């Protein structure tokens, strides 16, 4: 056995159609519903998803958290599926269901064995327009959502993230946390929710994705049957809110009952499909994917100043944040870790990057597309996500919608050292960043308050 550190070559020249988009078909019904199907018979399972292009991005001051709350209400019943029936039907058929809401979208999913998967279509077609908003159901579900929000309030990372995003975006609704502000949630009414539903839940604002072991012709006929007669709904008004360029570094401090200090640095970064976004994606991987990544090597292995580091750059409809997170070891200093990260950023600006390291990052992205998408539901997630967020006309036509995934690897493989350096110089500037520190609040030490409280009562 010999030690090998050779770097496998990336097959950039003959990039095959990615595994994920092979055999995908897309059509749009006359009422505007986008339908994406991918028939694969490898496993006797079908995943069905519906994506609505509405999330906290579409929310307004004083009304935050509505998209997410609405997601909860869609499980509470329709004319055809009374309270509890959606879950009961899912369970009886041995399926699973859930949903999630984020900045740009709200998505619902089901996985069923292949001989009963059309149950999912029946439920989704019913709750697209026929969800009932019973007052008492609304009241109890409001408490559930408030509990979900409290879990977030107890999480140190959530607290810091909310503060940094709210600081970095003063104008764009990425300012709001998706779950909403507690006070907004408390004042929400069933009528508000119904109005919001009537505004966004229509075929024209939705994408249905079906992946797995089914017959395409049968499936499309059933889709036509169940969704074809639903009116298209209003044309969603485009959102023209642009976050103005940041004119100087912003810094925030969050105090919390925690023994561990945390750091979050966010830079405004380009939207999905932007020509610079591919170089930024490679930079994300270079910084923190795997133990050989730059920040792991520098901060965990060499400086030994932190326990973990994570760098995230997610694709969103509008420009969002490219952000760095680090959890400090006791005795380390936030300011030193912050400077070390700037050091590593500077290396990228200086184009201090070998071809082998670049190839490694590209290979990680390519392999991840396969390794993270073995099951139909994972594939449906990816297809639906890009169909929903990569729809803007500024995105080249061959990369628009789910086709983003068809061209993504080619574009990633085309990224050069110079492009990474120039993107780093363009986006990772002092003026463009928001830095958040999470520190221990001595006033919330439970031993102090516990004693005081005992004394007072």
């Amino acid at each position, binding site marked *: 056995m010999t030690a090998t550190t050779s770097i496998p070559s990336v097959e950039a020249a003959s990039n095959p159609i990615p595994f994920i988009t092979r055999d995908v078909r897309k059509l749009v019904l006359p009422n505007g519903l986008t339908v994406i199907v991918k028939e694969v018979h490898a496993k006797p399972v079908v995943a069905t998803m519906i994506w609505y292009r509405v999330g906290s991005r579409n929310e307004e001051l004083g009304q935050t958290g509505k998209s997410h709350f609405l997601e909860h209400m869609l499980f509470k019943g329709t004319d055809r599926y009374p309270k509890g029936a959606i879950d009961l039907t899912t369970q009886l058929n041995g399926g699973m269901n859930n949903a999630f809401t984020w900045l740009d979208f709200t998505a619902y999913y089901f996985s069923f064995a292949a001989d009963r998967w059309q149950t999912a279509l029946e439920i989704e077609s019913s709750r697209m327009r026929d969800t009932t908003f019973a007052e008492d159901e609304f009241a109890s579900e409001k408490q559930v959502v408030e509990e979900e929000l409290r879990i977030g309030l107890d999480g140190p990372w959530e607290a810091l993230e909310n503060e940094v995003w709210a600081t970095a975006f003063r104008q764009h609704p990425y300012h709001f946390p998706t779950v909403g502000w507690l006070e907004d949630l408390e004042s929400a009414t069933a009528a508000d929710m119904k109005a919001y539903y009537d505004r966004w839940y229509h075929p024209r604002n939705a994408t249905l994705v079906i992946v797995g072991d089914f017959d395409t012709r049968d499936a499309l006929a059933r889709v036509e049957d169940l969704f074809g007669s639903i009116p298209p709904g209003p044309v969603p008004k485009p959102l023209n809110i642009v976050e103005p360029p940041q004119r100087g570094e912003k810094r925030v401090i969050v105090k919390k009952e925690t023994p561990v200090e945390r750091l979050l640095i966010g830079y405004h970064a380009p939207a999905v499909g932007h020509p610079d976004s591919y170089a930024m994606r490679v930079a994300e991987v270079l910084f923190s994917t795997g133990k050989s990544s730059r920040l792991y090597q520098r901060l965990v292995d060499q400086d030994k100043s932190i326990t973990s580091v994570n760098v995230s750059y997610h694709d969103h409809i509008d420009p969002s944040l490219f952000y760095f997170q680090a*959890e400090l070891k006791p005795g380390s200093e936030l300011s030193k870790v912050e400077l070390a990260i700037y050091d590593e950023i500077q290396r990228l600006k200086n184009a201090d990057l070998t071809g082998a390291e670049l190839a490694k990052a590209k290979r990680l992205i390519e392999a991840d597309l396969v390794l993270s998408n073995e099951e139909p539901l994972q594939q449906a997630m990816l297809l639906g996500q890009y169909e929903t967020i990569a729809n803007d006309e500024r995105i080249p036509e061959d990369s628009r919608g789910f086709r983003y995934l068809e061209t993504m690897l080619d574009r990633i493989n085309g990224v050069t050292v110079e492009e990474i350096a120039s993107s780093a110089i363009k986006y990772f500037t002092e003026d463009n960043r928001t830095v958040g520190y999470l520190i221990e609040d001595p006033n919330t030490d439970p031993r102090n308050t516990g004693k005081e409280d005992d004394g007072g009562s």
Partner: protein
Amino acid sequence: MVVSRKAAAVRLAVERLVLPNGLVVLISENHSSPSMSISAIVRAGSRFESDDQAGLASLTAELIEEGTTTRTSRQLAETIDSAGGHLMTFGDYQSSRLAVVALSRDFDLGLELASDLLMNAVFPPDKVRQQIDRRIAQLKSRLDVPRTQASDLFNETVFKGSPQHRPPVGYEATVTELSRPAIHAFYQRYYVPNNTVLAIAGDVDAKETIARAESVLGEWLRSDFVAPSVAYPGLSGGPVEKYSTALKEQVNIFMGHVGIERKDPDYHSLLVMDTILGSSPGFTSRIPRVLRDEQGLAYSTYANITSSSGLDPGRFVAYIGTAPSNLERARDGLRGEIERIVEEGVTEEELEIAKSYLTGSFVLRFQRNGQVAEFMLEAEIYNLGFDYLEKYPELIRAVTVDDVNRVTRKHIHPERLTTVVVGPIDEAGHVIDKEGAS
């Protein structure tokens, strides 16, 4: 009346071979994705640790990827990252684990890395020091999660006297004292072929894989290893209540007692009970339906006894996280549902729904290579047989209302519940007034 659906059939072809050194190799081919998963389980975890060495097994497992006789930590990381794959090692209560997930074209590389870690780890002193320091910091940040705090306190109370009362990650005081010789000795003693099972699933050729495994792992030396005995946890005599202060938005409540072993003959009836009481998807089972859906008390609430069953008895546990003002309703609600299922039993309709779900959803659990590898390991460890997938629907279908009611009365003891509450409360369990706290 509910009509349950016929189960979707699941079949899995598994090749099993035992090398002369005792290593068990399990292989299942699946060519639907150009990827594969290699998982190894070493049958030693924190259950073999002594109290003063808490954290030893998990630390050892994490350290096997920090250097071998021929590769430095950095080289190991570069090798797997350059293939675009992932390598994970960790230790839990009953086992130490290694997993390589990669494209199938990198199978040879993956197997070579896995073998290297299992056979040739060297535990460089600087890496040992670094990992211990890092673990101590992680132990602090772990307690930032109130649910984890509450779960730890619950285990500490319920499993008193058996190794399960400790978190597998150990404590600051014990981890600080761990040394390289102790870690190396744990590795020498337990990481031996006759204590290891290797499972490979995905886009591989079974025949070639066997040949590769024989050539790479055949030289691994067998040892005359004897598994230590493990203290058995006893049920507490009566109810126990524990309160711990954490100034958070929610109170986290764990309620329960010692559970069952995986080999318990009542396992499948209890699986049905779990599905009816507190572990169905969505909110159809009793606890989520009543406490979440009807009363709006929680986002997360559940109960089960089978999920933690293993070589040793797991825990019967009910959980809820709620606002401090709901503390009493939530606690009474959980206890009420536990008492009700023991006293009143379940209905024919609930039974049919649960069985229909369990049999129908089984197919969803084998979609990824990692899941298939996991099943093969479980089947091997618990002697389930690889035809368990075909037998499973029958085992579930055979369960009757009487079975569920009988096993519920036998295994669930409302009069012996331990209740642990962590949140903004004082030592007597009273909610601390937020305004009063400065």
